[in-house]
């Protein structure tokens, strides 16, 4: 029931598909893997896909805020798609709604960024 992550790149956008549970324990490995990819490739935008994530707490908010601060430096965007019930509630409370772009699914996110 831990976290598993699937990454893929579409031009300058990193797509991150999360499944399982994102908490303090699993967030540190996720943060490291994202940072390694950002060093290796020219990544401007990041899209988090929450479709198969069953649990997230404030540690997940910390990861997203940190990545937002990174992409912002290169005028990139942070997107979140396929939000569900309680994760959506936590994201709303965090104020991330004001700085994130929320889309229905990955396709809409690709269209929004013009990387379709």
């Amino acid at each position: 029931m831990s976290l598993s992550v699937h990454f893929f790149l579409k031009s300058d956008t990193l797509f991150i598909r999360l499944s399982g549970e994102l908490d303090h324990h699993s967030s540190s490995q996720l943060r490291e893997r994202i940072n390694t990819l950002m060093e290796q490739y020219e990544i401007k935008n990041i899209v988090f896909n929450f479709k198969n994530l069953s649990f997230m707490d404030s540690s997940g908010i910390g990861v997203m805020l940190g990545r937002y601060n990174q992409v912002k430096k290169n005028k990139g965007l942070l997107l979140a798609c396929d939000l569900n019930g309680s994760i959506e509630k936590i994201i709303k409370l965090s104020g991330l709604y004001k700085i994130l772009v929320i889309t229905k699914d990955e396709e809409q996110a690709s269209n929004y960024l013009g990387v379709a």
Partner: protein
Amino acid sequence: MKNKRDNYAEVTFEAISENEAFARIVVAGFIMPLDPTIDQLNELKTIVSEGVTNSVIHAYDSKGGKIKLILESYQNDVTVTIIDYGKGIEDINKARELFYTSKPEEERSGMGLTLMEVFSDEFYMSSKVGEGTVIKIKKSLELSKEMSA
């Protein structure tokens, strides 16, 4: 409708991050007989996860220690108590403020205690510097009873 029996469980475990998931599974198992809604289940898991994570990273500075989790149910009310014997909190009111964190360099957002309060019906917290912290919350699962009646 069948009467819900009062219940009690207590578990003490090491303050390591692996046990955040363990503690969530404990609370999920404990409330199963009360037929919670998915939202109630997720909110209780979040409450436990936030409390245990705080003990791991703040109370013991990620160096380990003991955490005690106590679960009780009366009728449709559940209480969760999380106790640590770590460094304690100097200013509880400041700690409870939304977005206040003493570890911004670790990408903490300062939301944990606020989420615990928002997702519970009653919230109590007491702490003593050098001795530790106790957080107790109460959550009513009343709605799920009405809906399944």
